[in-house]
């Protein structure tokens, strides 16, 4: 039977407060801030606003270029070890139940095995030199010939010089 005491006791009080709070925020967003947003200055393509920002210059060169492979392998390596850590979290959380269940030792050894397997992967990648993402392997763009430099060489002008009309 619903009366004031049971109403509060069964927790409906909290629901009432949260509902009130929710409605206030809904009203605030829809009506008050909504109207203000409607009246913000809205000039999406004024002048060069849409152009890519490159320190105040019209962007030269092209961003859609073929990057070096080494960045791709590096992200793959990161992905693998990220998942590995993600898998360690539940194990760590449940480790006390293992101890109560008496199989703490075996759980620990299993994790070591798991880490060992991934360690082998890390060693392979390390030996192959893929972790060294800064320097490029010989034969890549950073060969002696291109390091000779001189004036900046660029494939071709991809952007007209004058500001877009």
């Amino acid at each position, binding site marked *: 039977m619903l009366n004031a005491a049971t109403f509060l006791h069964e927790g409906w009080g909290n629901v009432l407060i949260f509902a009130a709070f929710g409605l206030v925020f809904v009203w605030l967003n829809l009506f008050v801030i909504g109207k203000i947003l409607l009246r913000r200055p809205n000039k999406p393509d004024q002048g060069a606003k849409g152009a890519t920002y490159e320190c105040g210059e019209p962007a030269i060169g092209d961003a859609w270029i073929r990057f070096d492979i080494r960045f791709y392998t590096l992200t793959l390596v990161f992905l693998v070890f990220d998942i590995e850590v993600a898998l360690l979290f539940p194990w760590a959380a449940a480790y006390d139940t293992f101890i109560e269940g008496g199989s703490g030792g075996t759980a620990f050894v299993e994790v070591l095995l798991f880490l060992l397997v991934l360690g082998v992967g890390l060693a392979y990648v390390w030996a192959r030199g893929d972790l060294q993402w800064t320097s490029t392997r010989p034969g890549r763009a950073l060969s002696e010939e*291109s390091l000779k430099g001189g004036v*900046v*060489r660029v494939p*071709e002008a991809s952007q007209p*010089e004058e500001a877009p009309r």
Partner: protein
Amino acid sequence: MTTIQGVRLDEGERAAPALPRDILTEELVFNMGPQHPSTHGVLRVVLRTDGEVVLDSQPLIGNLHRCCEKILESLTYIQGLPYVDRMDYLGALNMELGLVLSVEKAAAVEVPKRAQYLRVILCEINRVISHLFAAGQFGLDMGAFTPFLYMFREREEGLTLLNEVTGGRLLYHYIRYGGVTRDVSDDWKRKCIAWCDQVAAHMDEYNNLLTYNHIFLNRTVGVAIIDRETALRYAATGPILRAAGVPRDLRKDMPYSSYEDFDFKVPVGPHDKGVVGDSWNRHRQRLLEIEESLKIIRQAIAKLPAGDVANPKVTRGWKAPEGEAYVASEAPRGEISCYFISDGGKAPYRARMRGPSFYNISLLSEMSRGLLIGDLIALMGSIDITLGECDR
């Protein structure tokens, strides 16, 4: 030859021919342009990079060309002085001294001893302030914001000191041909000595905070090494040359404005860490030069002779007689010089000012090949450029 935004970029092959065709990778060309936190002003650098490694760069200057030399030829002698201040707005008094020295040598104007001492005192204070800004800015480029705040504390006191004598905080118009405009009071001398002690006391604080900071060391030791030969080839002078091991300081080698009366050491070459000529040595070089400048200030104040501060013969409408001179002096960023020609007219016939940053930046293109982009920032921060004197 393609032109992109005023940049003459040579037509070049897409990548090194040694690559097998299938895994051809391209280079990214972009601007580290006029509006960039680490270019210390409106310098624009076009970079060609492979990933993080800079293959080639081309600094493009001229965004702050303010026609200084044409103005010096159009205005009378006295009117032209404020424009020389605005060349290196961080070491403005040294710029004034540069122009004034060559005009005085050409016109054989005699400067009273007290005025020479006052010029030395204020120029050295200006050098300390400029080096504090440069060291703090370099720390800021490397990501350490706090040292910049600490160094600015001393810099603000120094600015108030100069403000008290010259009337300006950053640009002073204090030095005239044949002397200076105002004398200093005894109270000011006491404050100046107190300020010198304060800066000297805080030097080890800066070193612990920034110079010997582990991260800073990793970022700057052995990075962008400018050796003696490259510096001389590009005529890069000042802390860059001295950090590269060349004991060249015009205050010692070609003394002017009675610098020979003071004994101070010229810090040179490899300091206690890092390789000779690397970014860390340039930074350490500036901090050591601050300590030397403080010594000079103390000696100059102690030995300040009596006498008037300006040459009475030089009045407002003064004109230099026919003649020419080339005098160089040591500004915080390098050697400035003025090739002054006078034909007896109301204005200088030609006053060719040398901005050290103009030559310090020109070695950026060769030095940046093979650097990482972060190291290029270390290189630019350590050579400490001011675009005012670079573009004039």
